[in-house]
């Protein structure tokens, strides 16, 4: 019973985050920031939904193992695909939209003591 409620919460949370990630895909300005939103769908949305399904399997069995494998594959392949995509976009001459006038290097030396 508790497991059921917990799995419902996970499924709903995952569904909400999947939609939020898709909204982010629409709202963010360029391909670099959009890939953050896609990463959100890949990690948290997928992770929460699969976790919710795991709680419904009823014990340790083959289905649970397969779900764990799906989660593993998503988590290992998502950063690699993302990296290849962003690198290809950069090599093709896509310019990221950046905020002007941010000096990160100086704050690195002073260990972030300087307020921005």
């Amino acid at each position: 019973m508790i497991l059921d409620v917990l799995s419902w919460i996970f499924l709903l949370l995952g569904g909400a985050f999947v939609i939020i990630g898709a909204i982010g895909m629409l709202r963010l300005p360029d391909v670099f920031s959009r890939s953050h939103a896609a990463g959100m769908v890949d990690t948290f949305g997928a992770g929460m939904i699969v976790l919710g399904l795991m709680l419904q399997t009823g014990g340790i069995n083959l289905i649970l193992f397969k779900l764990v494998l799906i989660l593993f594959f998503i988590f290992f392949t998502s950063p690699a695909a993302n990296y290849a995509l962003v690198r290809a976009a950069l090599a093709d001459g896509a310019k990221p939209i950046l905020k002007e006038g941010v000096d990160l290097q100086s704050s690195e030396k002073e260990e972030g003591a300087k307020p921005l």
Partner: protein
Amino acid sequence: MNLRRSVTLWIILYIFWYILSGYHTPLLLTFGAIACTISVWIAHRMDVLDQEGNPIHLTLKIIPYWFWLGGEIIKANFELAKMLLSPKLEISPVMFKMKTELTNELDRVIYANSLTLTPITITVEQEGDELEVHALTVKAAQDILGRDMERRVKNINDGWEG
């Protein structure tokens, strides 16, 4: 060294095959063994059986790291969700280069992939010991330069040389 990696890869593949297939007849078990042998042979020919392709030296220390990484991912996700749902899109994307102190190739891969898995930051380019990172907020960029995650990655492989 290479033999040990081949054998461990074969065992892992066979366990994987056995669990997924669900057959127990001797003929099919033999076929599975043959398939695994061919796979290991191809991996050997492709020359991917190095410390990156089959990282058997990674100890169980990586499991606490995964849990910590999961916590970080959840935190970053809620932060990003809050940003995306607010009516004014308050992002301040920055991109910067940094030098990592990680000397090991596998450590660098783990570090770059962890950065990409955490939604507010992604690795754009990695060449030698230089990383180029795109972050969605200035605060996230400063967190990276605080080097907390880098230290944890270093801890996984502490004491292992080669």
